[in-house]
């Protein structure tokens, strides 16, 4: 039963990741690329779950939780910018920042939470003995930069207003703060004089 669940999670996760990455790479509407990147993020969660099912000590559960948090935060921040209407005049800083940070998180670049999620995911996949899956996940992460850059250059960012602006600000800040968390705690502990 367990091996069936593992196989299903791994197979579906891997397949979904390949399909979502190819779909995100196709030129098309900006919302569609981001949507497929979001789906790819969920496929990463499935791969992490598969690793957790295969080897409990692989850290797959932790990776799945971090990746899920990444997908939800990035999805929220990105969609708030994508679905808002662009303003005339200078581009909205909040919209542009939220959109860029969301893409970076989905691709796993620092200083976002996505980087740590990917590190945990790669570690879990390797721990489960699936080096090939780690390589696949890395290629998919790198490939996401292509639609990300295309979208960031081609389209004007939306300008969230009111509650949407507050939510976009909160989500963007969360993505960055969680990305910097290990290094912020470093500074805090050093200032507090806590022994290592």
């Amino acid at each position, binding site marked *: 039963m367990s091996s069936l669940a593992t196989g299903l999670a791994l197979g579906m996760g891997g397949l979904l990741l390949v399909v979502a990455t190819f779909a995100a790479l196709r030129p098309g509407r900006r919302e569609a690329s981001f949507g497929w990147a979001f789906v790819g993020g969920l496929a990463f969660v499935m791969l992490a779950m598969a690793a957790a099912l295969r080897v409990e000590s692989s850290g797959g559960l932790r990776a799945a939780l971090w990746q899920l948090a990444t997908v939800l935060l990035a999805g929220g921040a990105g969609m708030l910018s994508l679905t808002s209407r662009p303003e005339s005049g200078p581009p909205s800083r909040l919209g542009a920042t939220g959109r860029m940070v969301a893409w970076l998180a989905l691709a796993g670049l*620092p*200083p976002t939470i996505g980087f740590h999620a990917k*590190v945990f995911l790669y570690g879990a996949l*390797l721990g489960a003995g699936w080096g090939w899956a*780690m390589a696949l996940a890395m290629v998919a992460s790198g490939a996401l930069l292509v639609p990300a850059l295309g979208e960031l250059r081609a389209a004007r960012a939306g300008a969230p207003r009111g509650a949407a602006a507050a939510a976009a600000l909160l989500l963007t800040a969360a993505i960055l703060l969680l990305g910097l968390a290990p290094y912020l705690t470093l500074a805090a*502990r*050093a200032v507090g004089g806590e*022994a290592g």
Partner: protein
Amino acid sequence: MTLNLDAILLNWLLAFPFSAALMAALFPRFSLRPHSEAEAESLPRAPFALGALACLMGVSLSVSLLPAALRGTGAAADYWWTRDWYQLRFRADGFSVAEAMTLYLIGFLANLHLYGLPTPSQPHWRAAALLAATGGAAAAVLSADLVATVFFLGLALLSLWLLASLEAPQGADRMLVMGYGGVLLVLGGAMVMWRLAAGTSTEGLPLLLLTAPTAAVRLVAVLVLLGMIPLLAAAPAHSWLRALLRGDSRTALLIAAVLAPLAMSTALRLLPGTLPLSQMPGLATLSLALGLLSLWWAALSTRMARSIGQAVGWLVTAQAGQFLVALGVAANPIATAAVQRAALAVPAVQAVTAPLALIALWSATSSVLSRVGTDALAGLSGLWRRLPLSGLSFLLGGLSLAGVPPLPGFWAQGPLLGALLREGRWLLGALVLAADLLLVVGVLGVFRKAFLREREAPPLIPARRWLSPQLGMAGAALIVLAAMAGPLRAWGGAVAAHVLSLTP
């Protein structure tokens, strides 16, 4: 000796903007200036004091590590950052101690010339972000924490992309994609190491990997080395530098000079002891070929340099060439133990001598630029009588990098040449020696044109007060180090012996 590195890391991060300010001062024409002098004057002084304090603490901590560094035994460092977050601990070796000391001394010098914090104007802010990220990468390299190194390399790449986007968006995007590929490869290598450490370890990484299967170690080395190639290529490859610096592209050399030691540190940390050099497929041949190419190219280009800054840039490249040649010699499977030891001592000694020589050279360049208004050789002559300290500093730094005895650089090159000749590797020895001689000719040629040639001397601009003590300090440091040939050789020998003793 156990040391919490959190204070050191915090120190280094705090000190970095000040180091950036020093670079701006040393390279008035081709540095990414965080701000102008006028802007600096209007800034509050409190942050400067904080930075100065941070650097002083760093210097004190580094000096406290000196005994371990001289013994070559290394110091155990407890990186709680790594332990808490990624459940890994590594052990600092003697080389990291030397690195820490060099960096903190440079940071300390930076605080002698406090300028201020970056202005929020976009290009400068982005440049400052890049410098801060590079500083973070340096700190992470020091901590021997590969995941943290990857984090900061990625951050530096992103900052570079933001900066480059101002001038050349398409080139910047290509650079980001290519560089991220490199980041992922390095991360892949780090993940394999993490797995080899079984998630938790308190062992030093080199010791840890001694028990790893050869195939896994090869995989790690190949991934990391392949990953560093696009990362190193990413920085200087773009046209935004030229636009940002109004036509002067020498900053590319500056960034390469910053990145090269980082890559060298990583390579040194990974290669010796972590895996027998001879296990690396094709490493010896590749390293030797690239090293000889860099060395000869740099030697010929120094000879043909049209400005002092250009010559200094090529001397930096020559250093990288000498490092690669030494690595190639050490990695040769048929090399004897004596040759291996001499070759491995080269980068260890270089790590101490090259920064000092470069500070002397850059100080001399900066001095000529600020006093004459140009460093182009066509417009210079007869400076020896009017700027003797600059001339002396240039001569000492240049000849040291070329390996002329008794200057400190000789203690990196001399023993290697001696070992090669004793082993009967005449051709290689002759090639390296000839390149070194060509470098000497290049340095003397630049010196003659700028300082000795009798033509109408250009008028001098009033001096900035800090330049003379800086030149004096840089030159004096080289002379003092030349007098410490014994400890320097012992240090290089101890590092090499330590590295070789780790080979399974």
